[in-house]
């Protein structure tokens, strides 16, 4: 099989806004995404991972990864999420260059 270049957009943000972030991802035309529970620290407060009892559960982090094979779609997702959410909500986004096996899946 043959490897094909593709992009992976990563978004790390508050669990609370996952729904909205996913909507942006789907609206941009991505064919899938993966969500992982996380915790962390950035410019805002420390967010615990979801293992430890948190009175306000929705404030832990999630990491969302989207593989696409169209760099402009990747950038569109990143820009849209940043503009919509990252003034008010905490979060970061970055892109990685990867290679996939079955490009038609993405």
């Amino acid at each position: 099989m043959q490897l094909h270049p593709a992009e992976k957009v990563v978004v790390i943000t508050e669990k609370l806004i996952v729904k909205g972030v996913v909507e942006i991802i789907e609206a941009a035309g991505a064919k899938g995404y993966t969500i992982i529970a996380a915790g962390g620290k950035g410019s805002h407060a420390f967010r615990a991972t979801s293992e430890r009892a948190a009175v306000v559960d929705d404030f832990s982090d999630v990491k969302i990864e989207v593989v696409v094979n169209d760099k402009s779609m990747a950038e569109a997702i990143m820009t849209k999420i940043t503009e919509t959410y990252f003034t008010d909500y905490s979060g970061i986004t970055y892109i990685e260059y990867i290679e996939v096996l079955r490009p038609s899946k993405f």
Partner: protein
Amino acid sequence: MEFLLDFLARLVTQFQTPTLGFLIGGMVIAALGSNLKIPNAVYQFIVFVLLMRIGLHGGIEIREADFTAMLLPALFSVVVGVVIVLLGSFLFSFLPGINRADGYATAGLFGAVSASTLAAAMVLLEEESIVFEAWVPALYPFMDIPALILAIVLANMHQHKHSEDKHSKVDVWGIVKESLRGSALSALLLGLALGLLARPDSVLESFYDPLFRGFLTVLLLVMGMEAYERLSELRRVAHWYAIYAFFGPIVHGLMAFGLGYVAHVLVGFSPGGVILFAVIAASNSDISGPPTLRAGIPKASPSAYIGASTSVGTPVSIAVCIPLFIALAEVVFDV
């Protein structure tokens, strides 16, 4: 004088009840750096069981309750929720160094209701054999939802005045829906519905009742640990939040106590009901309020309102307000 003595005696006893003991215990071990942790999955289940139990009980009672007796307290709940938010917003708009959005969110959180404080008060009343109408906990949403909506509406109106974007409107129905869908209110209302329509009496007695007090001790342990851990966040924001969080619950509770007294005179609201109503007013939302406010007033910083509520507001409403209102009721109603 006698009242003061009684309150102080009660405060001392209160500090020896497991309820408060676990709250303080949680703070102490967090302060000592303990690695003890209650897993989040267990915590969520505990909250579910507490609210389901409160709901089931309430639902069963409502079956034979006189609906008219509930009307006035329900109305008063809305009033109290609204007044707390107006008062708080007004106050914060005068205080220096307060971000307006943060002020509205904090006022909203203190207008809203805490299920854990409510549960603690119920256990303490039961221990003191002070009876109350079982539908009183069902007043929860009548205070909670208006307070949250009002805070969000005020914050958005304020922001609109100061921004060019005059288009977006506040989606009141959306806030109501989000509140009702929150895990705490969902569980409470589901319990109410099942108590009303199904016949859950036996499972309530064999399962939800015995777990209620035990789970409450664990919940209070978690609240205590969180109270300590969020102190650092509170320290980073203006100290006005801490002051508000200390006096707010007492003032709000007394206000509700007064209205409750009116209901006592007019429609025979029981003394225990008045106490519980005052505690509901004194409490500040911990589980469902924060996400609703985070979504509704995104400009507000959670550190401000969650820190104030978790680290100061909740401990005060449990450790000070509950014994205070019981002592007050003894004086007022001679119970």
